[in-house]
C-alpha cells in the first residue's frame, strides 16, 4: 500500500504563525538568549510537520551554538544499519520540547559493532552519554530456512539476543553510555498470508519472537526499550516503513514517521532525566463527563453505558484510573461549586474515578493558572510536572500563556479520542515501573489533604486582551427565542433570580416597548461561543423611573471573561438613553446560585434591601455611573434608536 499521510503530533496545537515566531526567536538570540530559549521550547511544543521541524531545528542549532550552557546536554549516538540523518532534526527538536540540548552523532552505515569495540574511533571521541541501537533482524540473526523447526528458531533467537546483550555491555563498558534498544520493525511482507504467524520460520514470526525476547532481555539488563514495533502495529506499518525510502535511501524509518519517532526518543531521554509528567490534572464538565453538572444536575450529565458519548467519558476515567495505579497522581481543576462537583464523585453510580482517587480536588471559580499553582503547592511538586487536560480551548490557552511550564495536551473535540490524545502524547513516559510507583498515589493524597489555601498571580488582563473578545447584544428576536428560552430554563449557577419562562412569555417580553431585553453572544479568537447570556429588565413597579433586572443569567463557560461587567455597562447605557435614573438588581438565593450571591456588590451596586432567606435588592444610580473597563469590544444592536415597537422584530 502506498501511504501518503504522516504520523502527526496530534496532541500538540498547530502553530498559527511559525515563520514569524522563528524569526522573532532568532532575533531574540542576539539580545536576550534566555528568552530565545523559552521561545524555542514553546515553538517546539506545537504540531510541527517534518518540514517545519527542519526549520525549528535550524533555530535550535543556532541557539545551542550561541549559548551552549542554558540547557543540559545529552550526547546521543545513533548506531545501526540504516540511514538516520533524517531523524536527527526530529530528535533535536523533541529535545527542545523538553528543554534538553541533544547533541546527535550518526554512526557509519552498518558499522555499529566496530564503532562499539574500536578504541579511538569517532564514537569514542564523541563520548556518548546515550547509545541508541537501531538494528534490523539481519544484523543479529542468520537467515533461516522457511522450513526451520520451532526448536531451530528458539535456538537462533536465543543466540541472537545473547549477541545483542554483548553489544549492550560493550556500550556500557567501553563508553559508559546508557543504552536505548529499538525493537525490530516487521518490514517483510507475508509469505503465507494469514498462516505466517503460525509458521515458526516465516520472517514475521521470527521478528515477533525476537521482539518478545528483546523486551524481556532489555528489562533484565536495564536497557531502555524504544518499541517502534508496538507503535507500528498500532498505527499501521505503512506509516513507518516505506519500500521506496528503503530501496532509494536505506531509510528504515520513513519520513512520514520521523517526527513521531523523534518525539519517542525525546520522551525517553526526558524520562531518563526526570522530565516527564507526574500528575494528571483533569477538568470535569465535558472532560470527565458530558454536560455541566451545575446546570444539568446529577441525572442530566452524560456518563456511563447507554450512550456512546457516555461510554467515551468512561473510557477516559478508566485510563486515568490505570495511570493512577501506575503511580501518576490525579488531580481535579474545575470551575464549579466545590460541593456540587465533589458530589458526582461521591454519589454518581457510573463514576469510575472515586473521590479517593483524586489527590488534589480544586473546584472553585478562580482562574485555572492560579488553581494549577495551588495544586502543585498542595502536592509539593513542580508546576512543570503537571499535565492539564481540559476540553475548553480558552482554558488551555490561558494556561499555556501564563504557565508555559505546564504540559497542556490539545484535547480533541470528540471525547472518543481523549485517551488516544493522552496516550500518544507520552506525557507520563516511564523507563521503569517500581514498587515506589505503585505506592505513590497514596502518598500524595495525604500531602494534599494537609495543604489547602489558594494563591494567585496570573496575568489575567493580558490573557483576556489576547482573546479578541467581541460581544453582540441584541433585543430578543424571533429566531433566538428557542435558545433564549432553553438557556433560561436550564441555567442554575449564574442565574440571579432563576425565574423560568415559556417561549410565549419570552415573546411577550420581546414585544413590550417598556422592557429592555438582551440576548448576548460572545465571539473570541477560538470561535463563536453562541448565545451565552439573557437579560430581561422592566420598569420597577414601585418606582417606574428605575429599570429593574427581572432576569439575568449566563452560561458558565464564559465566566471570568468580564462579560458581566460589560453587560452592566451596556444596560446602563441603554437605560440612560431611555431616561431611567437607576438600575435595580435582585438576587433570589437557590441551592445552586451561590456563585452570584455577591455579583451586584462586585459590580458596584448598593445594597438597598434584604430578607432573612438571603435574598437582596441592589441599586445602581445612573447619574454617576462610569463604565467598567473590559477587554471586550461591544456591538449593540437596535437599542439606542428606541422607543420603537419594530425593534424587537
Amino acid at each position, binding site marked *: 500500500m*502506498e501511504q*501518503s499521510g504522516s504520523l502527526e503530533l496530534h496532541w500538540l496545537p498547530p502553530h498559527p504563525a511559525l*515563520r514569524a515566531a522563528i524569526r522573532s526567536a532568532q532575533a531574540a538570540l542576539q539580545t536576550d538568549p534566555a528568552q530565545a530559549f523559552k521561545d524555542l521550547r514553546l515553538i517546539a511544543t506545537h504540531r510541527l510537520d517534518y518540514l517545519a521541524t*527542519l526549520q525549528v531545528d535550524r533555530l535550535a542549532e543556532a541557539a545551542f551554538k550561541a549559548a551552549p550552557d542554558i540547557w543540559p546536554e545529552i550526547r546521543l549516538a545513533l548506531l545501526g544499519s540504516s540511514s538516520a*540523518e*533524517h531523524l536527527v532534526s526530529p530528535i533535536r527538536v523533541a529535545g527542545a520540547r523538553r528543554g534538553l540540548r541533544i547533541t546527535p552523532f550518526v554512526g557509519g552505515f552498518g558499522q555499529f559493532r566496530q564503532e562499539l569495540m574500536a578504541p579511538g574511533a569517532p564514537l569514542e571521541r564523541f563520548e556518548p552519554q546515550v547509545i541508541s541501537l537501531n538494528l534490523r533482524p539481519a544484523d543479529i540473526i542468520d537467515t533461516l530456512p522457511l522450513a526451520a523447526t520451532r526448536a531451530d528458531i528458539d535456538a537462533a533467537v536465543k543466540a541472537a539476543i545473547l549477541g545483542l546483550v554483548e553489544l549492550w555491555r560493550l556500550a556500557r563498558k567501553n563508553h559508559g553510555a546508557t543504552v536505548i534498544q529499538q525493537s525490530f520493525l516487521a518490514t517483510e511482507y507475508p509469505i503465507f498470508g494469514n498462516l505466517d504467524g503460525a509458521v515458526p520460520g516465516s520472517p514475521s514470526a521470527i521478528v515477533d519472537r525476537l521482539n518478545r525476547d528483546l523486551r524481556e532481555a532489555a528489562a533484565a539488563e536495564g536497557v531502555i526499550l524504544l518499541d517502534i514495533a508496538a507503535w507500528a502495529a498500532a498505527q499501521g506499518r505503512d506509516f513507518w516503513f516505506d519500500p521506496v525510502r528503503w530501496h532509494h*535511501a536505506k531509510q528504515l524509518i520513513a*519520513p*512520514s514517521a520521523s517526527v513521531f519517532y523523534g518525539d519517542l526518543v525525546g520522551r525517553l531521554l526526558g524520562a531518563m532525566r526526570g522530565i516527564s509528567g507526574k500528575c494528571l490534572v483533569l477538568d470535569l464538565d465535558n472532560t470527565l463527563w458530558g454536560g455541566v453538572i451545575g446546570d444539568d444536575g446529577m441525572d442530566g450529565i452524560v456518563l456511563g453505558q447507554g450512550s456512546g458519548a457516555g461510554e467515551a467519558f468512561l473510557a477516559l476515567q478508566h485510563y486515568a484510573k490505570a495511570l493512577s495505579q501506575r503511580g501518576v497522581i490525579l488531580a481535579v481543576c474545575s470551575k464549579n461549586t466545590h460541593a456540587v462537583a465533589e458530589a458526582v464523585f461521591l454519589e454518581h453510580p457510573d463514576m469510575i474515578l472515586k473521590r479517593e482517587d483524586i489527590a488534589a480536588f480544586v473546584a472553585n471559580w478562580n482562574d485555572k493558572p492560579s488553581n494549577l499553582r495551588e495544586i502543585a503547592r498542595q502536592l509539593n511538586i513542580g508546576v512543570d510536572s503537571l499535565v492539564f487536560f481540559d476540553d475548553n480551548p480558552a482554558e488551555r490557552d490561558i494556561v499555556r500563556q501564563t504557565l508555559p511550564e505546564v504540559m497542556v495536551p490539545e484535547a480533541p473535540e470528540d471525547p472518543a479520542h481523549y485517551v488516544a490524545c493522552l496516550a500518544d502524547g507520552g506525557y507520563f513516559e516511564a523507563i521503569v515501573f517500581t514498587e515506589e510507583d505503585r505506592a505513590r498515589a497514596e502518598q500524595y493524597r495525604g500531602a494534599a489533604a494537609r495543604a489547602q489555601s489558594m494563591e494567585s498571580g496570573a496575568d489575567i488582563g493580558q490573557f483576556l486582551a489576547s482573546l479578541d473578545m467581541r460581544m453582540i447584544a441584541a433585543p430578543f428576536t424571533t429566531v433566538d427565542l428557542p435558545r433564549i428560552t432553553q438557556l433560561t430554563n436550564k441555567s442554575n449557577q449564574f442565574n440571579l433570580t432563576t425565574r423560568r419562562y415559556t417561549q410565549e412569555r419570552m415573546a411577550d417580553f420581546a414585544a413590550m416597548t417598556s422592557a429592555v431585553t438582551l440576548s448576548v453572544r460572545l465571539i473570541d479568537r477560538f470561535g463563536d461561543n453562541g448565545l451565552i447570556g439573557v437579560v430581561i429588565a422592566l420598569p420597577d413597579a414601585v418606582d417606574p423611573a428605575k429599570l429593574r433586572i427581572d432576569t439575568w443569567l449566563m452560561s458558565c463557560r464564559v465566566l471570568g471573561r468580564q462579560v458581566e461587567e460589560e453587560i452592566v455597562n451596556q444596560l446602563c447605557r441603554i437605560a440612560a438613553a431611555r431616561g431611567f435614573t437607576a438600575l435595580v438588581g435582585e438576587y433570589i438565593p437557590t441551592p445552586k446560585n451561590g456563585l452570584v450571591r455577591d455579583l451586584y456588590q462586585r459590580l458596584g451596586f448598593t445594597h438597598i434591601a434584604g430578607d432573612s432567606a438571603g435574598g437582596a435588592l441592589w441599586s445602581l444610580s445612573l447619574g454617576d455611573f462610569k463604565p467598567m473597563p473590559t477587554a471586550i469590544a461591544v456591538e449593540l444592536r437596535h437599542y439606542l434608536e428606541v422607543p420603537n415597537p419594530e425593534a424587537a422584530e
Partner: protein
Amino acid sequence: MSTPTDAALLSEITDIMRDLFDDDALAITPAFSRKDNELWDSMNHLNLVFALESKYKIKFSIVDIEEMQSVGDIMKLVEKKTGKA
C-alpha cells in the same frame, strides 16, 4: 487538491524551497536545477520530495525521485500526479 496553475504551482514550490533552504528571498524558475544550489544536496532532495508528497498528497516513485532534477521536472510530475496536464 485543485489543479494549480503553473504560476500558482511555481509559487507554492518556491515557498517550500524557501523553508527548506532557509532563504526567504529565494527566487526560482522552472529552469532552476540541482546544479544551481549547493543546498539542494541528496539529503535536502529527499526532504524536498517528502515535503512535496505531504503538500500534494501524492507519492513519487523511485524513478521519479531520481529523475527529478529541476523545478520544471517537479512541476511536470506534480501536475501529472494531481490530475492536471
